[in-house]
């Protein structure tokens, strides 16, 4: 962890609650920002911030087994050792399923005729770019590739470096949904977490799980209820749950089709409709977050 940089991570558990729309708004308020899009599976922040990329690098997500059919005797020893069910016999030949192969390399060791080698999967990329209010680091995981947690780490580390260079000591992380490896990698080292939820049964269920995950990291956490007015009694239930868990709700953003229209025009809501009630609430959320730091 780099102590001179404050990382603020936006998470949600449930997908589609508005992490990226809120991140884009925070990115376009006030001083220059360093943004890290850690939803490397389905990165969207770049669609609003439209960065001009100035650096690009390939990322090796792992290795996949490749069988040399000139050497392979189809003995099947690798099949019995593979715990990922990635090797099978297709048309009388031993074949590896690229999407199932975990890259453990065990098959290369068990093969009696040295017919298996490993080839790197390097189709994933990460980028550094300049946007209208700062720098953003983002990535693209190639379809079907794994190890998104490791790619998240790279994006975070590069963003911290950029923030140090800019002498801008805050990095805002647009996190991934879920509670698995990319979410864990996004929250590791963060100074503070903001959970974006929505007033639905699923939103509340997933909020509870992500709060449980974050509690392992001993960092301050606050909650934003997006589209709060679509079900006010669920919003009250979320408020009550947060109160009992001693988590502060720092904002309730109303449902506003302007947020979608802003997205369509590659703008954040505060740029598109600065006087809309949703924008006003986001300004207040922005101040709550930065006052806490």
């Amino acid at each position: 962890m780099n102590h001179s940089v404050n990382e603020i991570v936006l998470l949600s558990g449930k997908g589609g609650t508005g992490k990226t729309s809120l991140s884009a708004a925070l990115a376009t308020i006030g001083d220059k920002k360093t943004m890290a899009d850690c939803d490397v599976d389905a990165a969207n922040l770049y669609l609003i911030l439209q960065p001009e990329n100035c650096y690009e690098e390939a990322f090796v997500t792992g290795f996949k087994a490749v069988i040399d059919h000139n050497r392979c005797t189809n003995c099947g020893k690798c099949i019995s050792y593979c715990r990922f069910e990635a090797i099978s016999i297709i048309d009388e030949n031993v074949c590896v399923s690229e999407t199932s192969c975990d890259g453990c390399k065990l098959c290369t060791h068990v093969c009696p005729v040295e017919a298996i080698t490993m080839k790197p999967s390097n189709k994933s990329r990460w980028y550094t770019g300049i946007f209208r209010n700062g720098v953003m680091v983002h990535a693209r995981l190639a379809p079907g590739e794994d190890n998104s947690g490791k790619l998240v780490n790279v994006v975070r580390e590069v963003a911290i470096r950029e923030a140090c260079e800019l002498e801008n000591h805050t990095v805002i992380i647009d996190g991934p949904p879920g509670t698995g490896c990319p979410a864990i990698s996004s929250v590791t080292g963060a100074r503070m977490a903001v959970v974006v939820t929505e007033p639905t049964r699923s939103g509340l269920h997933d909020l509870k799980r992500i709060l449980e995950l974050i509690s392992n990291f001993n960092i301050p956490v606050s909650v934003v209820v997006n589209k709060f007015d679509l079900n006010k009694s669920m919003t009250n239930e979320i408020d009550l749950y947060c109160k009992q868990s001693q988590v502060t709700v720092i904002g309730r953003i109303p449902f506003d089709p302007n947020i979608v229209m802003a997205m369509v025009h590659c703008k954040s809501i505060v740029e598109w409709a600065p006087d809309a009630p949703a924008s006003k609430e986001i300004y207040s959320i922005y101040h709550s977050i930065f006052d806490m730091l």
Partner: protein
Amino acid sequence: MIVAIASGKGGTGKTFVSTNLFQALQKSGKAITIVDCDAEEPNVAAFIYGHDISRKTVFQHIPEIDTKQCQFCGKCFEYCQYNAIVFLPMANFIKVMEDLCHDCGACSYACQYKAISETEKPLGVLKTFRVNESSCFIEARTNIGISSSVPVIKKAIKEAEGQPLVLLDSPPGISCPFIATVSFADYIVLVTEPTPFGLNDLKLSVETIQQMKKPFGVIINRAGLGDHAVYEWLEQNNIPLLMEIPFDVEIARIYSEGKLLVNEDKAYLEQFLNLYKTISHESFRQ
């Protein structure tokens, strides 16, 4: 037939579609099983109820190194591709980092001194519920702090093996949990929304599925919000649009309360039954 309901972007309505489709078919007397494969954040249980018939814990193997037998040769450390073994030869120190272990078995194979045995670590729970005589709901749920949901997802889908019609409610994204789910499917339904985020992530999902050579179609949810770019893209690429669900505050309210649209509105019951017909037809045609 196994049908996966998936999307790159989260929150587009995967669970909304899969639970309503399940309910429509279940009500019409079809034998059907729904598997909640979004093991990190499973939400089907907010909508589908049943009689709890079984609970199973899913484990992974974790190597245990017996330091009395260990000769500190470092071969297991060399074989491990996941940095899950910490080895300090000068200090005769060796340790397994459980969280990094992928359960591949390479270290056990590497060890010539029988110093490695395997213990089990719980990853999550599978619950099976009986909804009616011929319909089931299986939930995959990982424990908090577990980084990979893949083993739990695979076990949950195996649990549904042999059932005539299975719906898989997929996790979001295009990486391992998604792949683990859709690789079992005969047909994939992608749910998107008519926004730039929805379209961007739809393209990623389509690219992934085309590599896997699986037949698929698209549902546009919250139609009326956003723009027309998704429709144009589907047309240009000859991708079937299976169904459109309009943005409607009433639908959002029903969903938010954990209720099913097909129970509240007969017209939608018809629409979801038609969706099944379209899927059957499309999976056969493609």
